[in-house]
């Protein structure tokens, strides 16, 4: 009887085990929904086009657990040997670096490389852009006292430190190369990650092969990968439907999911998640009349988010009305709190009347400007069309200029725009760090609104140093009200929803609220 029971148990368990036992080999082909990355340098860039292109080539110090990427605090070591416990009242963190890690050129990776990379991120050399430098304001020094130890000393203890350290863009670069030319990684690739770089064809594809010397033994499972650039959604959907590519990691709209699953329910699997990305309209404060808060406020007041969001959710990958904080987070504004902020008023007619009054008062009744839009359908072009129509309802005329990813970033960084349809996409859900994107341009290089505002920085500093959860929440409300309403520095639109349909033979990849996370492909395998 016992044997029969055991046999039954085995019969039930074995197929599942066999199905989930990773298989080695094969090449994963995936689509990258962009024309090309603006550069290969993760420290510099803020776009998935860079991460989806080069993350498989690089290692990081720590990362979110690839098997549990939706968690905001399940961190695991990548280059370190174990997650450290802080000393000095949470102000000193010592990481031990793995032995035997090699760069793809065969030279050994040491703690000095890790320290140099992090110093380059936190304290970039003059003329070098580090897009997320501002989120590391808690870091004082980063040193490598020996070849296997890296020490981070903080100015103040904060729970925001580890999530910041697990940033998906914080690739470890070779110290020697960084010292010779800090811009080298913008156009070249040399990492220590699971895959070695093989080819890159501008606007076409990027590929890599398995790194046989990878320090996580047994990984990666894949022989290699090919990422194909295709900004047009229809191209990507057709590629997945025809199995010329297995998936795209960023996310597709509901219509594409339906299209892919139609008649292929057994072949197409889908993972979904709320997305730590929000659309925002970046307004150039240096250009008139946008230096006038009344004009910026009027632009916010014209948009009916409560009506637009549910409708757009049917055709795009945006879904949830929210403020500056990821909806669902304990720090996010409630609906009642949100409806007091300009751009979220429940009575849209009252809102638009106020918008017209403000424009008239500011002498900008016949406002006309150019909106720069990224040449990516979802959701940039959709959002742009929506807001242009909304703005027309208060008499504002907008010319849309659709540009590829590179010129889009150039316009934002160079300040050569009136208004840009942008997005604020973050890695881990960590609102205190995530809202740094909206700090003044002189504090946050990721903020392209081109302004300085000491009061906003003061509100943020108060928030950052607060440890009482109730007070943190109150401080966040004050920061949000000031940023979106009082100063109307930027316009927050609708939060995204991530839908990733993929060929069901792709295994070992889990969705997270960020399309930046979990992209090194080390644990991905093909069940073929």
């Amino acid at each position, binding site marked *: 009887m016992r044997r029969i029971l055991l046999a039954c148990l085995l019969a039930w368990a074995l197929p599942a085990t066999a199905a989930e036992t990773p298989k080695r080999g094969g090449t994963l082909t995936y689509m990258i929904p962009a024309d090309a990355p603006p550069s290969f340098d993760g420290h510099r860039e803020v776009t998935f086009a860079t991460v989806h292109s080069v993350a498989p080539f690089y290692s990081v110090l720590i990362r979110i657990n690839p098997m549990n990427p939706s968690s905001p605090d399940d961190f695991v070591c990548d280059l370190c040997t174990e997650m450290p416990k802080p000393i000095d009242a949470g102000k000193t963190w010592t990481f031990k670096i793995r032995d035997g890690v090699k760069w793809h050129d065969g030279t050994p990776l040491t703690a000095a490389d890790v320290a140099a990379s992090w110093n380059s991120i936190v304290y970039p050399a003059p003329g070098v852009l580090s897009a997320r430098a501002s989120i590391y304001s808690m870091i004082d020094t980063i040193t490598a006292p020996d070849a296997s130890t890296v020490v981070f000393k903080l100015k103040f203890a904060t729970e925001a430190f580890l999530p910041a350290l697990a940033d998906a863009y914080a690739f470890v670069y070779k110290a020697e190369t960084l010292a010779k030319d800090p811009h080298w990684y913008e156009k070249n690739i040399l990492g220590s990650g699971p895959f070695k770089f093989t080819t890159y064809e501008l606007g076409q594809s990027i590929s890599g092969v398995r790194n046989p010397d990878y320090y996580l033994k047994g990984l990666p499972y894949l022989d290699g990968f090919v990422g194909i650039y295709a900004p*047009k*959604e*229809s191209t990507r*959907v057709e590629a997945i439907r025809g199995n010329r590519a297995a998936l795209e990691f960023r996310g597709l*709209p509901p*219509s*594409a999911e*339906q*299209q892919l699953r*139609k008649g292929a329910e057994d072949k197409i699997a889908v993972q979904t998640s709320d997305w730590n990305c929000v659309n925002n309209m970046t307004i150039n404060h240096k250009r008139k009349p946008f230096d006038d808060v009344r004009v910026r406020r009027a632009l916010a007041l014209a948009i009916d988010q409560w*009506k*637009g969001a549910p*409708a*757009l959710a*049917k*055709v795009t990958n945006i879904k949830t009305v929210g403020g500056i904080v990821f909806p669902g987070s304990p720090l996010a504004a409630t609906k009642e709190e949100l409806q007091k902020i300009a751009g979220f008023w429940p009575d849209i007619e009252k809102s638009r009347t106020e918008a017209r009054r403000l424009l008239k008062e500011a002498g900008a009744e016949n406002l006309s400007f150019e909106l720069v839009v990224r*040449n990516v*359908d979802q959701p940039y*072009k*959709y959002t*742009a*069309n*929506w807001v*242009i*129509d909304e703005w*027309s309802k208060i008499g504002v005329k907008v*010319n*849309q*200029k*659709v540009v590829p990813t590179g010129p889009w970033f150039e316009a934002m960084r160079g300040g050569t725009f009136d208004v840009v349809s942008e997005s604020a996409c973050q890695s881990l859900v960590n609102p205190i760090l995530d809202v740094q994107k909206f700090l003044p341009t002189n504090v946050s290089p990721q903020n392209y609104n081109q302004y300085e505002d000491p009061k906003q920085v003061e509100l943020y500093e108060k928030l950052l140093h607060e440890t009482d959860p109730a007070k943190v929440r109150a401080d966040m409300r004050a920061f949000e009200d000031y940023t979106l309403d009082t100063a109307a520095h930027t316009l927050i639109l609708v939060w995204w929803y991530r839908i990733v349909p993929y060929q069901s033979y792709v295994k070992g990849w889990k969705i997270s609220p960020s399309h930046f996370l979990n992209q090194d492909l080390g644990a991905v395998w093909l069940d073929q």
Partner: protein
Amino acid sequence: MSATVIDDAPLPQRSFWQSTLRFCKRQPLGTFGLILVIIMAVTGFTAEWIAPYNPTANDFAAMTEPPSFAHLLGTDQFGRDLMSRIIYGARTALIVGLSSAVVGGFSGLVIGVASAYFGGLTDLIIQRVSDIVMAFPLIIMALAVVSIFGPGVHNVILAITIPLIPRCSRVVRSSALTIRSMPYVDAARACGFGHTRIILRHMVPNVVAPFLIMVTSFVGQAILAEASLSYLGLGVQEPVPAWGLMLQGGAEEYASTAPWIAIFPGVAIMLAVLGINLFGDALRDALDPKLRER
């Protein structure tokens, strides 16, 4: 003795309407083309009055609706009425098509006649420059120009006009070369008339027939080029209604679930270009003395 009577009475002149009627009888396909062109022109220029909806207004209650009485050609992914967008799109197509064809055609006319008239080094330089420009297909040249100057209606007109100039000048030059050696041109020169007068009064009127045929075909080419550029995202920008633009984005995304978003703008482009080409062919037959009496 018999007397020879010479009838030197002038041939009867036909009125405009008589000529038009004669054209319609002799060129039924051309007439069909002309009707399509007229419908397109009337539609485009009266869009404000005949379009049932605002072509740029989103209507979230009517997203991707199939053709119905409320929306005869259905709606797109923003709930915008496709019929209204096609009606307004006719205006965009006409503005771009006519402007490019007329400006490109007239520039080519002047350059072509001047090239033939002056000959020598002037002709050599103009023709070699034309060779260079004509080495690029129209759409490639237009793409290059838009890449330099950026998208938008005005830049699209410029982008399409530039490659049309040498195409027109080449055809006009070949006709003008024959005319240059005519005795009346020599006579005009002998009378001491200036170059401008000889070109404009004695040469240009005699190359009008091939010129008109060229310009007509240019309108169709320009409409197609505008649609192609807009489809590629380099032409007219959203939310301006333009047929090519209507074929990208939602039209591709909803090709299987809401095919009307792609079908109707495609049909509009096809009918417009077909109409212009049929009319252009008929015009050539009507104006070409060798084909006229067939």
